[in-house]
């Protein structure tokens, strides 16, 4: 059983502790090349943009010891910040987290709330009411979050299963553990990807029959894998296909992001299916670059949001075309290299590394 509750309030103690020589040596070896010996962000490694200055504090993904431990362990997808979970043991990583935290400005310690859920080695699925993911979007009384060990949170509405967006950071505050219950979850990560502004259309369409209702069949967590299963229903309630959707972080040579792994099976007949799961940045935006399995859209700051398709299906600008046949499951992976940060690929870099993207 994994410990679930994030015990805050240890930080003040940590901040008052002086790092020992061993921790200091770990810092010099592993952190200082980018972040500088004093933690001021002025390391010797050449980066597109300076690394975080610990002295300034204000960590994007949480400045609690647990949050820093997670960042140190798994890195920040889409940035040069690597994960150290393979190279340092947990005690070393925790010592570094305490040291990094102590380098920052004094913090008012958060009281123990006891209702924050944190993801450790195993993904975590949480059901609950979801607040609007973006301005002018709706709250969803039926919702679900999948938190991955890498710090990604996949946010779904489940009355008609649709991915609303992806967050990065701490997982979720269960505000419904206070009072009489029933209040909305408070996802803690920063949205790094919104599907059509956070209010996506139905995910699947059968040409001629219209949008299909995606009705939740369940969720699963197996080892480090997590996802959902659902059925696709026509308007008359007939189930025409079943879908398994697994999600995780994505790391490629041109940047990082997340991946959705679909497995779709017809319940009986052959029919074409459109999967509206590409979510291009904007309806009016044409790809800046594409090949058969790649779409790259311009996004803010001159970087690209890149869509990568593996497996079955034909990638169109805003959807994947599939041909379902009875008795044969189609499987494809849709990767999204997000515009999370400065390390997302520029057009030049993508062209140069075309073919290396996967």
């Amino acid at each position, binding site marked *: *059983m994994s410990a*679930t*509750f994030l*015990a805050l309030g240890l930080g003040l103690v940590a901040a008052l502790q002086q790092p020992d020589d061993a921790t200091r040596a770990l810092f010099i070896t592993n952190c200082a090349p980018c972040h500088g010996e004093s933690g001021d962000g002025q390391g010797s490694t050449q980066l597109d943009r300076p690394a975080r200055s610990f002295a300034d504090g204000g960590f994007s993904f949480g400045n609690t010891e647990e949050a820093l431990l997670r960042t140190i362990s798994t890195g920040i997808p889409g940035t040069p910040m690597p994960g150290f979970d393979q190279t340092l043991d947990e005690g070393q990583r925790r010592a570094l987290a305490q040291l990094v935290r102590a380098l920052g400005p004094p913090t008012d310690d958060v009281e123990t*709330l*006891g*209702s924050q*859920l944190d993801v450790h080695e195993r993904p*975590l*699925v*949480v*059901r*609950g*009411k979801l607040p609007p993911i973006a301005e002018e979007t709706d*709250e969803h*009384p*039926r919702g679900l979050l999948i938190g991955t060990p890498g710090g990604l949170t996949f946010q779904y509405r*489940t009355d008609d299963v649709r991915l609303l967006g992806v967050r990065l950071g701490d997982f979720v505050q*269960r505000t*419904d*553990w*206070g*009072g*009489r*219950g*029933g*209040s*909305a979850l408070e996802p803690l990560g920063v949205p790094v990807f919104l599907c059509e502004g956070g209010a996506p259309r139905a995910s699947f369409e059968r040409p001629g029959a219209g949008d299909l209702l995606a*009705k*939740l*069949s*369940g*969720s*699963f*967590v*197996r080892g480090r894998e997590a996802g959902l299963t659902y059925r696709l229903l026509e308007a008359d309630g007939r189930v025409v296909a079943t879908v398994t959707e697994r999600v995780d972080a994505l790391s490629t040579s041109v940047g990082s992001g997340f991946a959705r792994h679909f497995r779709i099976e017809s319940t009986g007949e052959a029919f074409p299916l459109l999967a509206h799961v590409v979510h291009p940045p904007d309806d009016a935006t044409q790809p800046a670059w594409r090949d058969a399995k790649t779409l790259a859209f311009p996004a803010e700051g001159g970087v690209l949001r890149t869509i990568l398709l593996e497996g079955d299906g034909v990638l169109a600008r805003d959807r994947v075309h599939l041909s379902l046949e009875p008795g044969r499951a189609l499987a494809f992976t849709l990767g999204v290299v997000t515009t999370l940060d400065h390390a997302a690929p520029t057009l030049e870099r993508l062209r140069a590394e075309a073919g290396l993207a996967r």
Partner: protein
Amino acid sequence: MILSLFLAALLPQVSEADYYTLEHFPTPAGELFEIGGMDFLADGRLVFSTRRGQVWIVDEPLADDVSTAKITLFAEGLWEGLGLTIVDDEIFVLQRTELSRLVDEDGDDVCDRIDTVSDDWGVSGNYHEFAFGLPRAANGNFFMALNVSFGSKWWIGKSPVPYRGWVLQVAPDGTTRPFASGFRSPCGLGTNAAGELFVTDNQGDWLPAGPIHHVQEGRWYGHPASLDWTPEYLDAGAKTSDEIPPARASIDRQPAALWLPYAWSRSAGNLVFDQTGGAFGPFGGQMFVAELTNGLVLRADLEKVRGEYQGACFLFRQQIGSVARVAFAPDGSLFCGLTNRGWGGLGPGSGLARVRPTGKLPLEMQRVHLTPEGFEVTFTKPLAPDSVSPADIDLVQYDYDYWWEYGSPERDHTPLAATATVLSADRRTLAISVPGIRPARVARARLFNVATAEGEALLHEEFAYTVNQLPEASGEPPTREHVARVVPPPPMREGRDEGWLMLTWGDALDHWQSQGWSHCDVDLDPDDPRRFTSREGNGAIANVGEAPVNFVSHSDFGDQELRLNFMLPQGGNSGVYLQGRYEIQLLDSAGKREVGYGDCGGIYKGATWPGSPPGINAFLGHGQWHRLTASFRAPRFDAEGNKTENARFLWVDIDGVRVQEDVEVPEVTGGALGAEVARGPLMLQGDHGPVAYSDIRIKPLWDETSRVVGRPDAADGWVALLPEDEDELDAWPRSGDSIWSHDGDVLIGEGPTGHLYTPRGDYTDIEVRARLKINDGGNSGLYVRTARAPEGSTWPAGYEAQVNSSFPDPQKTGSLYSLAPVLTHLVPPDTWFDYAVTCRDEADGTRVSIAVNGIVISDFLDVERRHAAGHLALQQHHEGSVIECAGLWVRELE
């Protein structure tokens, strides 16, 4: 009389433990077991789900020593789990939004997969939309129940989405169908050996008290909201009324099989039938009912009369904690799952407990059978010969009102007299002749002096039998009346809170001197009932911090009605000082028969005055919430400050039981803030040990020192300003696009943002009075010395007395906007209140004072003299907000 008998019966009965032991399982550090469902695996392990959406497995739950129990987490991340059932070792949990099967694919006792069995019901997002379950029908289908939700009026249950207020039946393949309707908050479901379904519901609108229903398919059980999803209403496009009982209430409303006396049950959880084959004692086939507020388990026994169930209930085992769930273990132990978060109840408020028979047979009323002549009571053991005479029996019958109001008092209390008693040959059955028992009533009885030949006394002396029908053999025709009688609906609640100041709503501490006090949830410390444990929450105001002071209001009060809730730990001691000077003593006086001025409900003694003992000991026990209400008349003084009249408590009630009536208090009582005064603050003692309070409110009553005395009179210089009609209103300047109208009595502002100004714009030193009402979510303000907002600007300059009951802006009614914020929600939305604003220049600055319902809330000296003169104005803050003004008066100060 009867009430006092009940109170006596509720006092801790130490002897219960002689027959049924109670053990609490330890909870791992950092966890909270808010238990919503329990069942057992084939290997004897206990599985329980919690309101935190976790599922835990207890290894060896039947081990002799509960402290050795190993409790491990099986699943988490669910949205509540208020029902759990195991079928062939598969775990089914009812979440708020779905019925799920939890699957451990690899056998490591950690859930890998959560299958959605059914989610075919609506969830609109309101907090109250709990889903409860999860017993099974004889055909293997699951039974579950859906709470109504609440709209803008929290006390009116609504069914905005299917099938709120229904019981559903879900087949293992997920097929879901509505089964029966008419429920409000059906927290507990249970089936008997025959698979018949019984459901508890909770007091509220249309629910006078807590019923137990025998639920049959297609029937309707009385709460109207669910009818919105019946074909009749859907086809007609009609909705049920919030106030008017539906026609079906008099046609085919199903009566409750049993009404639980409110003194015993304030919030029932689930029920289970004793199918332990005698392992749990002599009550085979009877039901055991979880009761969380009073922290006990009730027992009930039903019989069929004219083809329908009705019957009797009894107290069974008390002082357990907030029992929401009960479940029988394979060996006949009764497991109790506790939770009361956000609901309140006897501590402990969470955790797992176990009740087991000691093997010693108690003397109890085993069954009560209604006969044409009266009752036949069967006891668990033979009684002493001639041990009960008619004089040893107290009997009363009553009914309830069926109406939209929250709960109903017991109505038509009628004493009944037993005329004869006959003990059977085996001395186990007592026939009691009681003329005058009416159908559609509850009959409640207490039997005194019942004992065995060996002198063992009856463990619980009372029963309450719901007489829906008299037996056929009575010769009476069946009645169509109900225990819950349809009555003309009372006036809508709007206005009910009028005149009150909610002193701890919203920011509970803002209006108080409160060092050492916290707004939190508290439970009795399971390791030491003389202390509290506290956690995040808003259920209580408790002195759980360092060196707590007395809790003293910032405002001063004169004549008043007072209402608050309190809870004491074991040995607790506190006191409520009206005007900071006259103390109503609060003390853990549990079980005391003789009570003095220093006991709970006493008015404490003064230096020479001997105090006033309570008329009765109304204190039910530590860990239990009580409501204290009082009416108080302040002392009077002449112009020279000489007292002309003593202070007086008109009455003091605890939980509706009168403990003081018309008590004159000639001097301050011990521990007072100072000498007697016309107006003083409310003070709650906080330095005599732990105490918890909640929902403290005062209704200021008229007295000579009130700031608002009736309608301002022209003779005193007051000028009524409100336009008489639309034409006069047209002459008032405006800014913005708000819409102002006048219905002849009331000025109404709505629509987009804007302001309405008095025609005159040169007011300087003035007093203003207004009678105002703001809607839920609305926001407005009463401005003095204001200048019209310039073109292109939304907000005018001036001093704004804020009007806001529930708009998210933290500054609420009583605030001088941005200068003297008031964070307490003193006035509920949709409630008329009297506003008084005084603005005058003084030597050191401009003083602006704001009073609500006659009590000064803000008094601010603006040394910058921000605004010199101007109009009065009313604000319309935003689309959706509605401000109503039923009077506006101004008086210029000398």
